[in-house]
């Protein structure tokens, strides 16, 4: 694969153009990692602003109409809606797991069946998050099942 870097004008936005015959799995992975790597999210912790790396986020959850991002130990408040995050992270490791949460697939240690067609995701930080029945098909699709 050839990599060409061109200068752009001052008023132009940095742009990555991919020229390919067809988009295969490897290329998709590359696009995902570029997408994930370039993103920084603004969050709040103890009244101060923090810039978060999405790769460090285990999951997002909504409590009382507020969205929180959960790291390995830390919890941050987000000022965006869950559906906005879902849209932002479309095609990345994140997937909608229930009406109130979004999980980072790379932070799931294992999955076990729960009651009523639901699944429980055990994360690498020891937390357990429920995957609703209606979102299991999305997870299956993401895993290539």
């Amino acid at each position, binding site marked *: 694969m050839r990599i060409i870097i061109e200068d752009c004008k001052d008023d132009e936005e940095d742009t990555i153009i991919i020229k390919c015959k067809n988009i295969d799995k490897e290329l998709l*992975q590359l696009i995902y990692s570029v997408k994930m790597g370039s993103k920084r999210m603004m969050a709040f912790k103890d009244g101060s602003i923090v810039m978060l790396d999405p790769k460090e986020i285990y999951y997002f959850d909504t409590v009382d109409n507020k969205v929180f991002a959960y790291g390995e130990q830390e919890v941050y408040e987000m000022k965006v809606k869950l559906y906005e995050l879902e849209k932002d992270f479309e095609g990345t*490791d994140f997937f909608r797991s*229930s*009406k109130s949460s979004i999980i980072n*697939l*790379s932070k*799931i240690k*294992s*999955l*076990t*069946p*729960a*009651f*009523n*067609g*639901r*699944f429980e995701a055990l994360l690498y930080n020891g937390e357990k998050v*429920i995957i*609703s029945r209606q979102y*299991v098909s999305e*997870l*299956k699709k993401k*895993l*290539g*099942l």
Partner: protein
Amino acid sequence: MQRIKYLASLFPNIATGILISSAIFLSASGGSLGSLARILWQLIVCAFLCTLGSIIYPNKELSKKQTVILAVINYIYVNMIVIGCGIVFEWFDLQDWGRIIILSFLVAIVFIVVWCISVYKGQKLANEMNKKLAEYQKKKK
């Protein structure tokens, strides 16, 4: 195995279709087949009323406790319908406790079998997803 699974998934729909079309055909034939048609219609009514019991499950996320409570309510409802149909359609008498107990037992067996199948399917899917998850994460590293 895939073909057997496919056939098993088709079977309930085909059985229902045959039951309904047979009931219509036997009703139209009349004569000695009339009593057989009546039983088929009774079975269709009974199955329809039992199916209505599923309305109690809301289209929202349920806790473990809520799911168990609703399953118990559904079981009681199905029992009442089956026994009620048995009495109304004169399959047996209200005093016939032996048959009523056997019927309740059979309904319980159906519930247990359905539950076992869903547990088995859930575990199988979890195993498949865990395998794929491990592959996915390995590829990412």
